[in-house]
């Protein structure tokens, strides 16, 4: 259990009670592959990525396998997720054109939700999105979609409207254009990825520290005696943070999807 909470593979609680990693990044890296197929090494992160993928596919397949007149409870739950993403996020933000982007938004929403909830799943306790590669890749997909949509819908006007905004007074136009250019093409994908990454890293660190310190105080009862009671408030505080992290996991999946929809919307209908 302690190995899973600390998520550190070299940690041996039998010999050493407090296995503090040398660098905090070690909490998120699994450099030892679990197994290899040919030249491909499968670390814990890769295995969990595939697991998340199969969970998303499985949930949607089970929900929509058969069309029924009276849907099952599970089917209704999946339908409400799909209609939330399609109607509220895609159509509500992008407009009537948004239905085209609903499949993409649904996939990233479900994937990020499952990957975030791995943080709280007993036995896994590792949020996939706390490895920068995964949120960065998802943000690059969003970036590609809104750039390609912008150029294909508006042609080169898309770029001109960003660099040379007509609604701004002439004296400031070049400055605003420069800021807009950097913020649209560079800062948008970076902040999109960093927001998800940093939220999940912070959550994983807090859970590790609080639950781990609680466990360490309990485990050290032979050495420090009654003073190990100090582990109880830490453990309870950790459980409180556990509930808070559930909210964060769902909210971050929602915000990533919402921001993707907003970015696509600015490409579909540029400001007049």
């Amino acid at each position: 259990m302690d190995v899973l909470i600390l998520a550190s593979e070299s940690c041996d609680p039998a010999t050493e009670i407090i296995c503090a990693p040398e660098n905090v990044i070690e909490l998120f890296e699994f450099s030892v592959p679990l197994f290899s197929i040919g030249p491909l090494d499968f670390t814990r992160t890769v295995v969990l990525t595939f697991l998340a993928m199969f969970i998303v596919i499985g949930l949607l397949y089970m929900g929509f396998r058969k069309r029924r007149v009276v849907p099952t409870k599970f089917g209704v739950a999946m339908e409400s997720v799909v209609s939330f993403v399609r109607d509220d996020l895609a159509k509500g933000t992008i407009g009537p054109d948004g239905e085209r982007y609903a499949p993409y938004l649904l996939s990233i929403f479900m994937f990020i939700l499952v990957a975030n909830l791995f943080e709280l799943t007993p036995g896994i306790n590792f949020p996939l999105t706390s490895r920068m590669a995964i949120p960065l890749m998802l943000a690059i997909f969003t970036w590609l979609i809104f750039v390609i949509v912008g150029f294909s819908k508006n042609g080169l006007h898309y770029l001109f409207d960003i660099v040379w905004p007509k609604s701004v007074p002439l004296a400031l136009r070049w400055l605003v254009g420069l800021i807009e250019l950097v913020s649209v093409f560079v800062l948008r994908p970076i902040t999109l990825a960093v927001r998800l990454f940093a939220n999940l890293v912070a959550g994983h660190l807090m859970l590790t520290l609080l639950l781990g310190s609680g466990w360490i105080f309990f485990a050290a009862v032979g050495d420090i005696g009654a003073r190990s009671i100090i582990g109880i408030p830490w453990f309870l505080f950790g459980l409180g943070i556990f509930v808070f992290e559930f909210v964060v996991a769902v909210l971050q999946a929602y915000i990533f999807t919402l921001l993707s929809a907003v970015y696509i919307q600015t490409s579909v209908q540029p400001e007049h």
Partner: protein
Amino acid sequence: MEEIKGAIALIGYGLAAIGPGIGIGIVVGNAIQAMARQPEAANMARTTMFLGIAFTEALALIGFVLFFIA
């Protein structure tokens, strides 16, 4: 006088959290005011509130990420 130990990045993160803390307070407060004044527009206000929170929060998170880079 006692010696102070630790990473200065921690102070940097603390400083980075001040501004967004105030900002998120303003965003949520005004969103609640909007929802109370016009409950029928609550859904729109909530979506926009989350957007505002996300943009503001990013500043604090950049401070947090500097802790890893530094």
